[in-house]
C-alpha cells in the first residue's frame, strides 16, 4: 500500500468502521476525545515549561502575542482540569462503560446516558478551557477561599462561565455513576432475574468483608469480578467528589451572580480553613481515591487479560480496595500540614498515619500485579505489557515521594515546592496513570476496531521509551529544583533554576514527541476515513458490545 492509501484507508485496510457496533463506536469516541484533551494538556504543559525556562520575553507586552502573566496563570488553572476531566475522565469512563457490561456479560444499562456523559464532559471541558484561555479566570483548581470570589482580580462573568463548564462535567459524571451501578444491578430484558442487592453488596465489598468472619464453607462467592469491584468502589468516590465540586461550585456561583447584579457578598461569611478542609476532602476523593482504586483495578484487569490467569491473592486484593476506599475518605489532611490553624490531631492521624496506608494499599496492588504476571512466565513483551510495567513503575516512584511530603517535618520545607508537583504529581499522572491507560488502549485497540492492525511497532516502541524517559525525567528535574527551594505556581525572573527548568523542558519535549508518534501510529492504523467513520452513526443494536459472528 502507498503512504497515501494507508493514510486514507488505514494499515492494510484492516479497519472498517461499518462493522462496528454502536457501543464500540461510542467507546472509541470517548478515547479519541480523551486523547485530544490529553494533547491540549500536553501543549499547555509545554507552554508553561517554556515560561519556566525564561518568562521574561512572555511578560513584555507585545513581544509574543497572547502571552503574559495572566495568560500563564490562566493556563496553570486550566491545565490540570483539562488533564483530569477532559482526558482522564473520558478515557476511564469510556473504557469502564464498555468493560463493565463486557465483564458482566450483559448490555450497558443506558446507551443514551453514556452518550450524554461523553458530550457533557467534552462540552463542559471546552467551556472552562476556552473561558480560562480567553478571560484568564485563574483561581487554580484548589480554589482557596476567597480567591475564586476575588473580583478585584477576576471578572464575575468569566468565573460564572468557568464554573458552569465544571458543573457540566459533574453532570456527565453523575450520569456515568448511575449507569455503572445500574448496569451492575439490573436485569436486562430476556435475561434471568438477578438479585440486584446481592450484586451491589458484592461490588462494594460488603460480601467480601462478611466473608472475612465466616469459615470457608459458609463464605458467599463473589458475584462480580475483581475489576468490576474496583470500578464500583472507585465510582463511589467519583460520585462523592462530583457532589462536593457541584456544591462548592454553587457556593462560588452565588457570589458571582450577586456581584453581577451589583451586590457584593461578604467573603468572611465562609471560614477559609473550614472551606479548605471541605474542598480538599472532596478533591482527595479523586487524587487519593478513585485514581488509586481505578488504577489498581486496571492493573488487575490487565494482568489477568495478559496472563489469562486469576489475580494472585484475589481476596486480599478485594480487601485492599475496600481499605483504600475508607482511606480516601480520611486522608485529606495531608494537604493542610502547613496550615497552622489545622488541629494537630488531624495532621498526625489523617495527614500522616492514614496517608501512610496509601503506601500499603498501593504497594500491595503493585506486588499482586507483579506476582500475577510472574505466575504466567514466560510472557511476550507486548505493548500492553510494556506500558503496564511502565505504569507500575510510575506509581512505585510517585507514591513514596508523596508519603515523604505527607510528613509534618518534611512538609515544612516541601509544601508548594516543585517537589510536590514533579516527582509526586506528574510522575503519578504521566508515568503511573497515563501508561496504565495506554496499556488498556493498546490491548483494546484490536478488540474495539474488530481487528485493525497496528501500523508500526517501531513507533510504538518509541512511544513507550520517549514517554517513560520524558515523564520520569521531567519529574526528576522538577523535584531537584523543588529540593533547592523552587516553588510551584509562581515564576522566577532571574534564571534562579534555569538548568533544572531547561532539562525539564527537554523532557517535556520528549513527552510531546511520544504523543505525536502515538497519534501518527493510530491514524495510520485506522486511516482518516476510519477515524471519521467512528463519529458516523451506527445502525447496529446498542445492546450489542461486539459484532455478532
Amino acid at each position, binding site marked *: 500500500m502507498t503512504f497515501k492509501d494507508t493514510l486514507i484507508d488505514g494499515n492494510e485496510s484492516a479497519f472498517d468502521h461499518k462493522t462496528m457496533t454502536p457501543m464500540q463506536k461510542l467507546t472509541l469516541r470517548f478515547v479519541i476525545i480523551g486523547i485530544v484533551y490529553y494533547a491540549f494538556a500536553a501543549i499547555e504543559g509545554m507552554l508553561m515549561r517554556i515560561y519556566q525556562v525564561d518568562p521574561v520575553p512572555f511578560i513584555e507586552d507585545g513581544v509574543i502575542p497572547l502571552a503574559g502573566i495572566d495568560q500563564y496563570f490562566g493556563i496553570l488553572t486550566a491545565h490540570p482540569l483539562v488533564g483530569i476531566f477532559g482526558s482522564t475522565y473520558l478515557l476511564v469512563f469510556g473504557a469502564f462503560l464498555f468493560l463493565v457490561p463486557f465483564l458482566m456479560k450483559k448490555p450497558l444499562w443506558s446507551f443514551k446516558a453514556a452518550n450524554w456523559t461523553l458530550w457533557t464532559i467534552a462540552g463542559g471541558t471546552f467551556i472552562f478551557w476556552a473561558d480560562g484561555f480567553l478571560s484568564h479566570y485563574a483561581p487554580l483548581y484548589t480554589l482557596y477561599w476567597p480567591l475564586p470570589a476575588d473580583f478585584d482580580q477576576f471578572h464575575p462573568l468569566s468565573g460564572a462561565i468557568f464554573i458552569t463548564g465544571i458543573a457540566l462535567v459533574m453532570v456527565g459524571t453523575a450520569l456515568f455513576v448511575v449507569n455503572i451501578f445500574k448496569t451492575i444491578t439490573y436485569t436486562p430484558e430476556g435475561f434471568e432475574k438477578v438479585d440486584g442487592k446481592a450484586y451491589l453488596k458484592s461490588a462494594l465489598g460488603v460480601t467480601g468483608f462478611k466473608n472475612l468472619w465466616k469459615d470457608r464453607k459458609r463464605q458467599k462467592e463473589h458475584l462480580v469480578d475483581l475489576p468490576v469491584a474496583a470500578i464500583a468502589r472507585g465510582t463511589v468516590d467519583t460520585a462523592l467528589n462530583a457532589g462536593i465540586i457541584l456544591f462548592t461550585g454553587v457556593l462560588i456561583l452565588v457570589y458571582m451572580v450577586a456581584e453581577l447584579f451589583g451586590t457584593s457578598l461578604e467573603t468572611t461569611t465562609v471560614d477559609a480553613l473550614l472551606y479548605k478542609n471541605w474542598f480538599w476532602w472532596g478533591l482527595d476523593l479523586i487524587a487519593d481515591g478513585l485514581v488509586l482504586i481505578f488504577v489498581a483495578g486496571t492493573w488487575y484487569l490487565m494482568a489477568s487479560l495478559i496472563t489469562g490467569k486469576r489475580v494472585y491473592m484475589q481476596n486480599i486484593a478485594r480487601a485492599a480496595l475496600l481499605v483504600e476506599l475508607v482511606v480516601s475518605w480520611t486522608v485529606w489532611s495531608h494537604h493542610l500540614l502547613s496550615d497552622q490553624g489545622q488541629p494537630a490531631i488531624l495532621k498526625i492521624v489523617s495527614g*500522616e498515619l492514614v496517608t501512610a496506608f496509601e503506601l500499603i494499599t498501593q504497594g500491595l496492588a503493585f506486588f*499482586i500485579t507483579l506476582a500475577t504476571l510472574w505466575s504466567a512466565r514466560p510472557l511476550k513483551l507486548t505493548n500492553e505489557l510494556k506500558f503496564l510495567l511502565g505504569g507500575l513503575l510510575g506509581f512505585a516512584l510517585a507514591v513514596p515521594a508523596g508519603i*515523604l511530603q505527607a*510528613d509534618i517535618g518534611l512538609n515544612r*520545607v516541601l509544601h508548594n515546592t516543585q517537589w510536590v508537583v514533579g516527582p509526586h504529581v506528574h510522575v503519578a499522572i504521566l508515568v503511573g496513570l497515563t501508561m496504565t491507560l495506554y496499556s488498556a488502549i493498546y490491548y483494546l485497540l484490536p478488540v474495539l476496531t474488530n481487528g485493525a492492525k497496528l501500523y508500526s511497532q517501531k513507533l510504538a516502541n518509541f512511544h513507550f521509551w520517549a514517554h517513560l524517559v520524558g515523564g520520569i525525567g521531567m519529574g526528576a528535574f522538577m523535584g531537584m529544583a523543588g529540593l533547592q527551594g523552587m516553588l510551584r505556581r509562581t515564576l522566577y525572573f532571574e534564571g534562579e533554576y534555569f538548568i533544572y527548568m531547561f532539562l525539564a523542558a527537554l523532557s517535556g519535549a520528549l513527552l510531546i514527541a511520544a504523543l505525536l508518534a502515538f497519534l501518527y501510529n493510530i491514524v495510520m492504523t485506522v486511516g482518516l476515513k476510519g477515524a471519521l467513520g467512528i463519529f458516523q452513526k451506527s445502525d447496529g443494536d446498542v445492546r450489542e458490545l461486539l459484532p455478532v459472528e
Partner: protein
Amino acid sequence: MVDSTTVLWGQTIVYSLYVVAILVVMGVFTYNITRDGKPPTVKDKLFYTFAGFLVVLGMSLHVVTYNTIPWVPTDVHRGDIEADKEFAINVADHEFQLPEARLMIDCEDTVLFNVTSSDLTYGFGLFRQDNSMVFQMQVGPGRDNEIIWEFHKNGVYSIRSTEYSGPLGYQMIVKDAVEVSGCDVAAGEGGAK
C-alpha cells in the same frame, strides 16, 4: 544543628537510592518474565512479609522525623513554648506589612512569627540568599497563623509568599527582610546561647 539543608540532603540521598533500587528491580523483573522456565510459585510468606515491611516503613518514617528534625516537636507543642521574640506581620493586597524594615534576630532565639491576612490565602516562607527554603507556612485569612523557629546560623533571609493568591501573587517577595546575627560570638560574650 540540623537545618532544612541537612534534612533535604538526607531526603535526596535516600530517595535517589530508592529510585535506583526500584529501577533495577523493574528491569530485572521485566527481563526475567520474558525468559523461559517454570515459574516458581510466589509464596504467601513473601507477600505477608512485604505487607508487614510496608506497614513498618509507613509508620516509622514519622517516628524518625519526629525524633531527628528539630522543628517537628517545636511545631507540635508550640502552644507550650514561650518565644524570646515575636513578630506580628499582616498581609493585605498582595503585600507583606512588616513591623520593621528588617527583622533583627539574635542567634538561637526562639522566634514567633504571627502572620495574619486581611483578604486572601497567602503563604509565608523564609528563603536563604541561594533561594533554598528555611521554612514556610500557609497564611489563612481570619485567623492567627503562628510558627515558632530557632535560628542557628547567621544570615540574611528573604520573605516570599509560598501560596498562589492570583496573578498578582508572584511578586510577593521582600528581599533581605530578616537578619540573624550573633552565631559567631561565643556564649560567654553575649552571643549564641
